[in-house]
C-alpha cells in the first residue's frame, strides 16, 4: 500500500507528509499471528552477512555493508461502524552496499541464502564498476569504529502486535461511535503498527541487531450539512510515536489542556482516542458555522501539535547537509542555509530559538540506537540562540564540513532500498521560565491560536511557506474570543523564526510526528518526531483561503 492508497482507503492524509513508502499492489501480506514469529536468529544472520561481506571484498570492495531486514506492519482501517480492512504485511530481504574505487553500488534481493547474498554483493560491485567511468567525486567515508555484536530495542511496554486484532478494531470502532454521537457525519480511523527488525553488518566490524517499534492511531471526522453542501473535517490530535500499545492507555498526567476558550486537549506519551474522537465530532460540526478570518498580520500562538510540522519543514529539511550540498536538487530541493550563508553567521531566528537534533529522544519515531551505516546515535545542537551551528550529516559528507564523524542520520525505508541521509528528530527547546499557554495568550493583543497540523507547503530552498491547521481561535486583548476558519499563514523562514517571542516551559512540551516524510530518488519515507512547547510568533501574515467554485 502506498500513501495514495492509504488516503483513498481511509479518507485520512492531510497531515501525512509527502510520499508513499509502504508495500504496493500485491504486497506481502501475512496473517497476524505470524507477526509474532521471531524470524531468523542472529547466528544465522551473521553467517549470511559474512557471506555477503566476503563476496563484496572479493569483488574489489574497499568497504561494504549488509542490511538483513524484516519489516512487519499491521494496519487496521475502519469507517463508521465497520472494519474496512485489516492488513498484515511482512517483507524480508537483504540490501548490500559496496564501495568500489570510490563509487557506491547497491543491490537487494528477497532470496535470503548465502549463495544469493554473494551474487547480490557481486551485482552491487558490478553496478559500482559501471559507474566508475562517470564518477568525479570519489566517496570519502568518515572513519567508523566497529562495535562488534551489539543490539538495541525501542523501549516499549507492550508490543502492539501482541494485542488481539479484535481488541484494536473494537477500540477504533468505539472512537468512531464517539465521534458520530458527538456530531460527525462520517469518520475514518486507522491504527498503524510498525516493527522493523534490522540486522546491520559492515566491513568495519559491526554486527548490530535492532528491534524498532512505532505506532500511530489516527482518524478523520467529517461533518456534512447537506442543505448547504458544506463539509468540514477535524483530524486526530494524536502523534505517531516510538512507543508500544501503552500509548493507547489514557493517562491524566499525559494530557495537556489547551488555553481557556479553546476546548482543546493535547497529548504527551499517552493518548485518549475516545475523548479525542468525541471532541473531534463536536468540533467538526462546529466548523460548519465558524467566522471566516479577516486576512492581515496577527501574532500567532502555535500549539506543539501544529508547530512540529513548521519545525519539520523550515528547520529540519533545510539543515540536512545533503540538501545544502545539492544532492536533492532534482527532487526535494536545496537549502537557503548554504555553507556560505552559515559562514556569514547570519541569524536563523531570534535569540529565543534553540533547536536540537536528537536520535535518542524517548517516544520519538525517529529514535534508534544505531543508524543504517553502523553509527551510534546521539544528540547535538542545530540552532543555538538563533544562530545555525551545525547540520545533519552522514559518513560520506562529514569531510565536506571539516568534521571527522557522522551524526548517525543514515536510514533506508526497507532492506530493498539504499540508505541515505534522513532527518533526525528535530525539536525546539522549551522556554526556561515557567509559562502556560494561557499566560502567553494574556499578553497578545491581536492574534490567532492554532492547534493541530493542516495544509502545508514550502519552496524548494525553504524560504516561503504556507501552513494551515485543524483548529483556529481569535485572540483579542489577551483572551480567546471565537473560533475561526479559512486560516493559513504565509512567511519566510528567517523572518518567521526571527519573530519568535519565546515558548512555554517543559510542562507544555510534547511531540508531533510523521510516518511519511518523503525524500530521495527512488522516493523513500521515514518517520520523524518534533517536540516543542506552545510558542508565540509576532506579526505573521495570515491569508483567507475561502474560494467559490
Amino acid at each position, binding site marked *: 500500500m502506498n500513501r495514495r492508497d492509504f488516503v483513498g482507503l481511509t479518507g485520512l492524509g492531510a497531515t501525512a507528509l509527502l*510520499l508513499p513508502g509502504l508495500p504496493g499492489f500485491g504486497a*506481502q501480506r501475512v496473517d497476524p499471528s505470524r507477526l509474532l514469529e521471531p524470524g531468523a536468529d542472529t547466528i544465522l544472520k551473521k553467517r549470511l552477512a559474512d557471506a555477503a561481506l566476503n563476496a563484496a571484498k572479493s569483488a574489489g570492495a574497499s568497504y561494504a555493508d549488509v542490511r538483513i531486514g524484516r519489516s512487519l506492519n499491521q494496519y487496521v482501517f475502519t469507517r463508521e461502524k465497520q472494519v474496512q480492512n485489516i492488513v498484515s504485511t511482512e517483507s*524480508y530481504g537483504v540490501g548490500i552496499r559496496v564501495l568500489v574505487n570510490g563509487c557506491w553500488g547497491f543491490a537487494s534481493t528477497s532470496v535470503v541464502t548465502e549463495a544469493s547474498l554473494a551474487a547480490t554483493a557481486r551485482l*552491487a560491485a558490478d553496478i559500482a564498476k559501471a559507474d566508475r567511468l562517470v564518477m568525479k567525486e570519489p566517496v570519502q567515508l568518515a572513519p567508523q569504529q566497529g562495535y562488534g555484536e551489539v543490539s538495541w530495542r525501542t523501549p516499549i511496554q507492550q508490543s502492539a502486535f501482541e494485542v488481539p486484532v479484535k481488541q484494536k*478494531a473494537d477500540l477504533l470502532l468505539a472512537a468512531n461511535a464517539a465521534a458520530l454521537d458527538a456530531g460527525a457525519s462520517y469518520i475514518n480511523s486507522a491504527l498503524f503498527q510498525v516493527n522493523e527488525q534490522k540486522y546491520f553488518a559492515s566491513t568495519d566490524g559491526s554486527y548490530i541487531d535492532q528491534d524498532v517499534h512505532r505506532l500511530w492511531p489516527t482518524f478523520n471526522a467529517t461533518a456534512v450539512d447537506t442543505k448547504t453542501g458544506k463539509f468540514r473535517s477535524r483530524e486526530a490530535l494524536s502523534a505517531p510515536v516510538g512507543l508500544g500499545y501503552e500509548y493507547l492507555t489514557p493517562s491524566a498526567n499525559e494530557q495537556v489542556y489547551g488555553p481557556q476558550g479553546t476546548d482543546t486537549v493535547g497529548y504527551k506519551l499517552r493518548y485518549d482516542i475516545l475523548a479525542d474522537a468525541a471532541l473531534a465530532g463536536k468540533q467538526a460540526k462546529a466548523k460548519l458555522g465558524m467566522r471566516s478570518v479577516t486576512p492581515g498580520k496577527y501574532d500567532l500562538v502555535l500549539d506543539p501539535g501544529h508547530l512540529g510540522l513548521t519545525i519539520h519543514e523550515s528547520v529540519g529539511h533545510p539543515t540536512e547537509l545533503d540538501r545544502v550540498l545539492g544532492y536533492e536538487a532534482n527532487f526535494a530541493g536545496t537549502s537557503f542555509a548554504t555553507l556560505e550563508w552559515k559562514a556569514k553567521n547570519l541569524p536563523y531566528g531570534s535569540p529565543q530559538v534553540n533547536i536540537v537534533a536528537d536520535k535518542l529522544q524517548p517516544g520519538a519515531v525517529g529514535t534508534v540506537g544505531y543508524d543504517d551505516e553502523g553509527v551510534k546515535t546521539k544528540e547535538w545542537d542545530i540552532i543555538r540562540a538563533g544562530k545555525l551551528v551545525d547540520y545533519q550529516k552522514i559518513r560520506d559528507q562529514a569531510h565536506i564540513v571539516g568534521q571527522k564523524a557522522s551524526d548517525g542520520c543514515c536510514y533506508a525505508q526497507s532492506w530493498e532500498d*539504499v540508505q541515505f541521509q534522513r532527518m533526525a528528530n528535530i525539536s525546539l527547546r522549551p522556554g526556561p521560565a515557567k509559562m502556560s499557554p494561557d499566560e502567553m495568550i494574556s499578553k497578545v493583543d491581536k492574534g490567532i491560536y492554532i492547534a493541530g497540523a493542516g495544509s502545508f507547503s514550502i519552496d524548494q530552498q525553504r524560504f516561503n511557506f*504556507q501552513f494551515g491547521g485543524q483548529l483556529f481561535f481569535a485572540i483579542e486583548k489577551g483572551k480567546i474570543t471565537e473560533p475561526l476558519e479559512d486560516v493559513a499563514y504565509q512567511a519566510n523562514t528567517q523572518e518567521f523564526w526571527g519573530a519568535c517571542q519565546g515558548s512555554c516551559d517543559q510542562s507544555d512540551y510534547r511531540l508531533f510526528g510523521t510516518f511519511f516524510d518523503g525524500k530521495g530518488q527512488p522516493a523513500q519515507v521515514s518517520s520523524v518526531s518534533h517536540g516543542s512547547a506552545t510558542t508565540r510568533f509576532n506579526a505573521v501574515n495570515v491569508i483567507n483561503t*475561502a474560494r467559490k467554485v
Partner: protein
Amino acid sequence: MAILSQTEAQDILKKVIGFSTADECDATLNGSLEGNVRSARNSISTAGAVDNVSLAVTSYFGKRSGTATCNQFDDATLRRCVQRAEEIARLAPESPEYMPLLGPQTYQSSPLSFAASTAGITPDYRASQMAASMQYCDSKKLSSAGFLNDQAGFVAKRNSKGLEAYQRTTNLDFSITVRTLDGLGSGYAATDFTDIKNFDAARLTAVAASKASSSVGAKAIEPGKYTVILEPNALVSGSDASLLAALMRSFDARAADEGRSFLSKKGGGNRKGEKLFDERVTIYSDPTNAEVPDLTFSGDGRPQQRTTWIEKGVVKNLYSSRYWAQKSGIPDLPSPGGFIMEGGTQSTADLIKSTAKGILVTRLWYIRPVDPQTLLFTGLTRDGTFYIENGAIKFPVKNFRFNESPIIMLNNLEAIGRPVRLAGNLVPPLKIRDFTFTSLSDAV
C-alpha cells in the same frame, strides 16, 4: 526470477487455487526487476538494483475474508500460505460490504505495455545515459542533478470463480535539474517511456540547461492574478502531488454521494452530468492507448477500459468500489491508472506567441490541498518562471506561491496545446487566465 511468463505465473496460481478449501479464493502474483542511477553535482551519487516477487492469497468464508502471502514458490510453502489465509478468514468479522468474487472477465490486449528494449537495460546503459547528460552540463559549465529509473514487471491474477489475468509492463523515468554554478538559475525537464527506443538523456538535459541559463537574474514582480502558460510538468508530476492528477483522484462516487467532495450536490447526490469545466476540456482513460499503455485490469480484477470522465466540460462518469456501484446503481468503473487530456496542435512556443502578457511556468512544486470543498491547492513555481510580453519571453521572474483550484483553472481556459506523455499520462500545456499567485519566493 522476477519476470515470470504467463504460463509460469498461472501454473503457480492454479496450484494456489487448487490448495484452497474456502468458499472463494483470490490470488495475485506480482514481480519486478528495477534499476536506477542518481546523480548530483555532475557525478553519480547512488546506483542500485532491486529484485522482488510476492504472492498474495485472499480466502473467503461467506462474508469473512483473510489474506496471507509468501515469496517462496515450492508446493509446501504455497499450501501453508493458503492455509494461513483461511485461518484468518475464519476469525475475521463479517463485512457488510462483501461482494462475491468476479467470474471470468474479458480483458483487452495491451502488448505495448511491455518493451524488450526497456526490460534489457543494463548498468552500463544507465551509466552511459547519465554520462551523456553530465557531459553536456560540463561542456556548458552547469551543474546537474538527475535520476534514471527503469522497471520491468508483471502482474498475474486468478480466482476460484475462473477469473484469470496476466500482463507485463516496462517503464523508464528520467528527470534532470540543471543549475548555474552561481546558484542563480535553475531548469528542469522530465520524461517517461514504455519503450526506450527514443530516449536520449542528453537531448532532454539540453532543455533543462537552456532554462537554467535563461532564468538567471530573475526579477520580482507583484503577486496577483496573471495569465499563465502551464507546461505539462506544471500540471502532472511523477514525484509530487499535481493539479490535474488531484482533480482526477477526486472523481470518487461514494465521496461525492456522501457530501464530502466538490462533486457533491446540495441536498444530496452528486454532480454527474453537470457542466463544471470549459467545454474544451475532455479527459478520458484508455489502457490500450499506444502512447500511454497501462494495465487492462484493476486490483480487484475489473476490466480497465476506455472511459470518459469529462467530456466537453461535463462530468460524464465517476469511479467507485463494486459495493458502492451496486448499492447506488451506477456503472461499475474502477479508478484509472493514468489519464489522457485531449488537446490541440499548438506547442508551448505557439502558446507563448499568442500571449500579450503572461507568465510561463515550467514546474509546480510542493502542491498540497488547502480546502477539499473547493479543491483549493497551494504550491510554488520552480525551475524556470518567465514573464511573457507581446508573444515573447522578456525576462525571468522570481518564483511565486499560488493558491488555486483546478476547477477554477479549467474554467479560465484560454488555450490548450499538444499533449505529451508525462508520468504515464498524456497532458497538454494549458494557457489559463486569472491564475492566483499570492506571494513571492526567493528560492531558485
